[in-house]
């Protein structure tokens, strides 16, 4: 078996994945997405030498573009372009979850500044504004009053790119100073962590502290259904605990980071990821 690992930079996660590949004696190449040049009508023969390509690009846009091209050429990839496209976009993720009947925070969408402020007031304060294509918890804004709403929306309209003119408004969830990240690989939740922070944004990229979260049958079922709702694969499902509504799916990540989750859970997450890919390749299941 021969795999290609697509990277933008080699982070701790990629080094852990490569370690597993070496332990399993699986042949692999590391491919830097910055070096690629595709002639779309002429598939490069070297891609055919891989049984699968595992996208670990830190750049969401580059990674997705490569997945589209490789799928077009018939190269098996993990995760699929469709799954990645859905997870990279909070609007598409929310719609996919809602279509599957899964619980999500109340969400509104607007394009005009005044209508956006109206939406925020409809949802009620505090509300949350998010970029539809954001990552690492960047540019999230908790809106506590009308003054903040008008100011943040004006900043988005004036300083943001066209993507920031799509105003994704979400109900603020009064979670217990933590959220849950569940790692779903295939059809099971292999482990989960609590991400605790005094800040309302609980991404580990923003300094949240991790601890093991027991995978209850309820959490497993919810997260597996959420993963399936966006197409399934190797996914990290972020869950909010709402005191009144129970567990809500917040978002799903298709190129998950896991360096802070191995020690508290005791689960070898990179090994689980590689085993899943190997198993799917052997069964001829191209995502």
């Amino acid at each position, binding site marked *: 078996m021969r795999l290609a690992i697509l*990277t933008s*930079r*080699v*982070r701790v996660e990629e080094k852990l994945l490569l370690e597993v590949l070496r332990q399993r004696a699986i042949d692999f190449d590391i491919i*830097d997405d910055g070096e690629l040049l595709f002639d779309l009508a002429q598939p490069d023969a070297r891609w055919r030498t891989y049984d699968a390509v595992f996208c670990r690009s830190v*750049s969401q846009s*580059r990674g997705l573009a490569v997945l589209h091209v490789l799928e077009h050429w018939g190269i098996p990839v993990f995760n699929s372009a469709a799954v990645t496209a859905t997870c990279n976009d909070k609007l598409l993720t929310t719609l996919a979850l809602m279509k599957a009947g899964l619980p999500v925070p109340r969400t509104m969408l607007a394009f005009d500044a005044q209508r956006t402020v109206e939406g925020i007031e409809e949802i009620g304060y505090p509300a949350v504004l998010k970029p539809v294509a954001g*990552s690492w918890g960047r540019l999230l804004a908790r809106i506590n009053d009308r003054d903040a709403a008008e100011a943040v929306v004006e900043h988005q309209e004036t300083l943001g790119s066209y993507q920031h003119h799509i105003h994704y408004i979400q109900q603020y969830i009064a979670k217990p100073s933590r959220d849950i990240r569940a790692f779903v690989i295939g059809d099971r939740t292999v482990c989960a962590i609590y991400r605790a922070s005094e800040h309302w944004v609980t991404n580990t990229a923003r300094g949240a502290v991790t601890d093991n979260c027991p995978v209850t049958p309820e959490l497993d079922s919810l997260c597996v259904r959420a993963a399936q709702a966006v197409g399934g694969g190797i996914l990290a499902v972020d869950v909010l605990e709402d005191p009144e509504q129970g567990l809500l799916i917040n978002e799903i*990540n298709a190129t*998950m980071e896991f360096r802070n989750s191995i020690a508290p859970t005791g689960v070898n997450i990179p090994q689980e990821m590689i085993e899943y890919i190997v198993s799917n390749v052997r069964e001829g299941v191209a995502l």
Partner: protein
Amino acid sequence: MAHCPECDANVSVQDTIVGEILFCPDCNAELEVINVERPEVALAPEVEEDWGE
């Protein structure tokens, strides 16, 4: 031994692979390993808006 492009400090690329990120021991600049056989590092690219999970 590679040299930091920011402060010219010696930077070891031993036990690294191309694409890995290091920090200069002297000036703490974020560096990307460019070559291991002929040790070379460059300033790591700035984080872009679409980076992350």
